[in-house]
């Protein structure tokens, strides 16, 4: 993982406050767990049926029956609980999930999220992503600021099929922390060594800048 991504993940970890129930989506968000201290009070949820995820295990240490929704071998903590898939999403839909961190193909300035389908290229199904995006009390996105071709992933409108509308509150990228406000994207923080103008350039919609100094991470 590049240094910029590492810092993005470390910064995103600070989004988690004590006592929260949190679901970390597949991919980059999963790495956030490495930035949580052993005595930090938090409950990590995975939609295949576990609250209280413990550290990831190597194949040598793994329990063949204990994975997270991304297929990684994980462990339990004192106070973990297993449940079926209906209960797992009941928790999500009924407002018991305080925060989810998801990946994205595109985020619109209205907070619409597209992260499950690229017609003609990638259509494996949405899995549990729609319910996480639509029902977590707070949805934040971890993504690179641009795609591999250098095109902005933050856009005026999503062009890909929507996962959920108006759901994204905040975006952590390798360049910046950006909030979705009623007026659109607003820059909160910039990565060390990245100028606000570069971030605005790499954003596909207007980006409001804060008055005064922009904190760095």
């Amino acid at each position, binding site marked *: 993982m590049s240094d910029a991504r590492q810092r993005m993940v470390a910064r995103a970890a600070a989004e988690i406050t004590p*006592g929260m129930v949190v679901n970390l989506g597949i991919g980059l968000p999963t790495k956030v767990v490495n930035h*949580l201290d052993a005595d*930090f*009070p938090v409950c*990590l949820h995975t939609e295949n049926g576990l609250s209280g995820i413990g550290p990831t295990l190597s194949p040598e240490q793994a329990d063949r029956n204990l994975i997270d929704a991304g297929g990684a071998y994980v462990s339990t903590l*004192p*106070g973990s*609980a297993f449940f079926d898939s209906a209960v797992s999403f009941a928790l999500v*839909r009924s407002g018991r999930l305080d925060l989810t961190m998801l990946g994205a193909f595109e985020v619109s300035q209205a907070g619409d999220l597209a992260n499950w389908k690229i017609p003609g290229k990638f259509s494996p199904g949405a899995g549990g992503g729609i319910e996480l995006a639509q029902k977590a009390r707070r949805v934040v996105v971890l993504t690179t600021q641009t795609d591999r071709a250098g095109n902005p992933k933050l856009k005026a409108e999503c062009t890909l099929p929507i996962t959920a509308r108006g759901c994204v509150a905040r975006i952590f990228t390798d360049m910046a922390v950006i909030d979705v406000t009623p007026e659109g994207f607003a820059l909160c923080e910039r990565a060390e060594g990245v100028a606000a103008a570069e971030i605005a350039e790499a954003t596909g919609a207007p980006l409001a800048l804060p008055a005064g100094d922009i904190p760095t991470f």
Partner: protein
Amino acid sequence: MKLPDKTTTLEAAVARIPHGATVMLGGFGVPGTPFTLIQELLRQGQRGLTLIKNDANETGMGVDHLLAAGQVARLITTHIGLNAHAIELMNSGRIDVEFCAQGILAERIRAGGAGLGAILTDIAAETELAAHKQRVEIDGKSLVVETALRADVALIHANSTDPFGNLDYVATARNFNPLMAMAAERVIVEAERLLPFGTLAADDVHTPGPFVDHVVELGALSEEYAIVRR
């Protein structure tokens, strides 16, 4: 990471219930009824409550105390045949009672806990219980819309809890408790024992901790929990 601690006192937990609240209460007869939480609610005296409970216990027991104290405006239930006092209050118009088929009450609460809007069923479709309910045609069949129920507060009786609120229930004291423990904005649990973290096997938890807000350990159980000799 470690799991958060939700233990509190009986008084502080019940003080979170406002006047006019909708309150779900576990229990089917004596087993699973949160008698201690009910006694504290009686002591604190919140009024204008809507109660959702399978039954009204018996005269002089459990929720009947709240009925007698005039704290209850409305009761959503399945059967109150063991409480003549409750029937009298209903017949004289002093409380408003809504009856539901028992399994449909369970499903409406579960639907609330599962974040669904409603369920569609043919149960009771030909009875007066569904006479004024919305219908929807599915595949040529007219089904009754039974809307999801949620509450401001659920009062739950568990056998064991850990500090995070992972719960288990024993025997037929389970009944509506795990359903209601998913279906309220604030879930308050009285448990016969508070176990240290890691004592409850993760596979044997009946209500996962994320659904629970406050846990209170019971001391010696009052007479209301005991065997009823008729």
